[in-house]
């Protein structure tokens, strides 16, 4: 009896020792902030003096929906994510096809395409500020050399967001390529060989054998790229400051500005809560799609 009790105590002592520290830290730094965020979103206060607060209920949420600037931030961020996904998917897919074939210099291509993935978003944003410089940038240098007129890029209302989309595509292509490549390597070789024996050309094999089998991988890549793009922050802070005229005001940057520059953490928390729900929704959709049986 006593021995059994002793064993139970030892057992739970071991569980607590091994799992406890992790759980404690996770609760403290992930779950507590989430609860706090939802709670704070119901109040009006300043970061400098958080104890002096007035309860506003859902007021912050109503403000967020009413304010055209906030609506613009959501529109900009989703437009950005949409643009990135539309470009990254085809580009990385074809690079993955290239890498999966028996073509020369595969290792070099894989390494080179992956370089931006290990480079920080700060360095990439910094590089691109200068690449896109209206007068002395490398890209305008190339454009001028080919005899065209230099472009304004980040300083133009119409070109700023597309420029940042281009940068993000450059940054994320390597990651998406690796994901596609592992999907391609999961396709049995004999399937393609069978199609070849039946007289299918390269394009037909790609269109009717490879692409249908990559449905799951594609959904996966689309969702990851969407979630990554929705969280973009550094480009707005480093390259444009959200401008010109709010055309690159990403949600994460908007939240940062509202909370830390404009001292409205209540409103920022309300937007954060909405933003979190949106991103979680996209991720949940991913899990659903990943779990459902795809016809293989």
């Amino acid at each position, binding site marked *: 009896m006593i021995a059994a009790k002793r064993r139970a105590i030892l057992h739970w002592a071991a569980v607590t020792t091994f799992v406890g520290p992790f759980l404690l830290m996770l609760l403290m730094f992930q779950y507590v902030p989430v609860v706090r965020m939802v709670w704070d979103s119901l109040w009006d206060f300043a970061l400098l003096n958080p104890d002096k607060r007035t309860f506003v209920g859902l007021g912050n949420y109503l403000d967020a929906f009413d304010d055209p600037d906030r609506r613009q931030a959501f529109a900009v961020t989703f437009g950005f994510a949409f643009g990135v996904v539309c470009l990254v998917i085809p580009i990385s897919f074809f690079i993955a096809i290239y890498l999966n074939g028996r073509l020369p210099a595969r290792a070099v291509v894989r390494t080179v395409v992956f370089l931006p993935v290990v480079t920080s978003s700060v360095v990439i944003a*910094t590089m691109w500020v200068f690449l896109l410089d209206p007068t002395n940038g490398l890209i305008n240098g190339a454009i001028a050399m080919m005899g065209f007129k230099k472009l304004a890029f980040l300083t133009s209302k119409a070109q700023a967001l597309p420029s940042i989309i281009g940068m993000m595509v450059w940054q994320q292509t390597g990651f998406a390529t690796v994901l596609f490549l592992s999907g391609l390597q999961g396709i049995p070789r004999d399937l393609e060989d069978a199609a070849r024996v039946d007289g299918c050309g390269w394009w037909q094999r790609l269109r009717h054998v490879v692409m249908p089998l990559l449905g799951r991988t594609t959904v996966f890549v689309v969702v990851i790229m969407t979630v990554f793009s929705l969280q973009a922050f550094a480009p707005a802070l480093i390259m444009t400051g959200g401008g010109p005229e709010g055309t690159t005001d990403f949600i994460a940057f908007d939240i940062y500005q509202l909370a830390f520059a404009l001292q409205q953490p209540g409103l920022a928390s309300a937007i954060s809560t909405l933003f979190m729900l949106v991103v979680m929704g996209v991720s949940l959709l991913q899990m659903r799609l990943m779990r459902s049986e795809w016809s293989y």
Partner: protein
Amino acid sequence: MKRASVLAGAALVLVVILVVFLGPYAWIVASSFKPQFEIFRDLNPISWATFIPANPTIANFVHLFVNRGVGRALINSAIVSSCQVGGTLLLCAMAAYGLTRIRFRGANFVFGVVLMTFLLPIESLMVPLYMHVANLGLQDTLPGVFIPWIASPFGLFMLRQAFEDLPRELDEAATIDGAGHFRIFWSVVLPNVRTTLATLALVTFLFSWNAFLWPLVVIASPRNQVIQLAIAQSVSIGQLPNWGETFAGATIATVPLIVLFLFLQRYFVRGIALTGVKG
């Protein structure tokens, strides 16, 4: 004939990829060894001089270290990243051991709670997390930069998988020999998952070294700056940046990672592909 056209197409793709992906790096690194007027001069028109400095000078780098405190920022980044890697490995490995090797009621529930955090976008948590960390007195300190992230759900997920794949006969044999949990954890399980530990260490290092938003929020004083903050500051909007110096900073911040990446490419690619699971 057909083979030749395929090869020509492949060569074209290869050249485009090399130019698009290497060109920016080559320009930044080459320009970091040039004074400002040479950077502008060598751009009109673009030639070999754009990408290879004719009279390389290390003045930009010297100025960064002497006047801009980049040395301090590099040391801070190294401290933060190594602590984050060490803390993450220890905490995640212990939790993974507890979840896979000590059978207890509620283990699945605990893992579910951990998996749920996969869905949380860090970007949305910065405001409450900042207030929370400030309450703990950790704002504007180096521990404040890494402590919130060492309980990494991704790390636990990755290690749990590796621990599950390890045959249980190994630790059962050790138990019969009279080894306790700590012995089994340290001398039986850990040595057998070295590759996974190394992969997790690399990915954690990469994330920690490259992190920007959280350090920006939590750090205020220059002496606690990490390298990404130092670079971001040199391009901050509204002031005229010194091109060569900014490029030198970007080069310094990136070269350590690229060297690591070139040597350990396989682990990087595998680890980062796995982070996709987190999304």
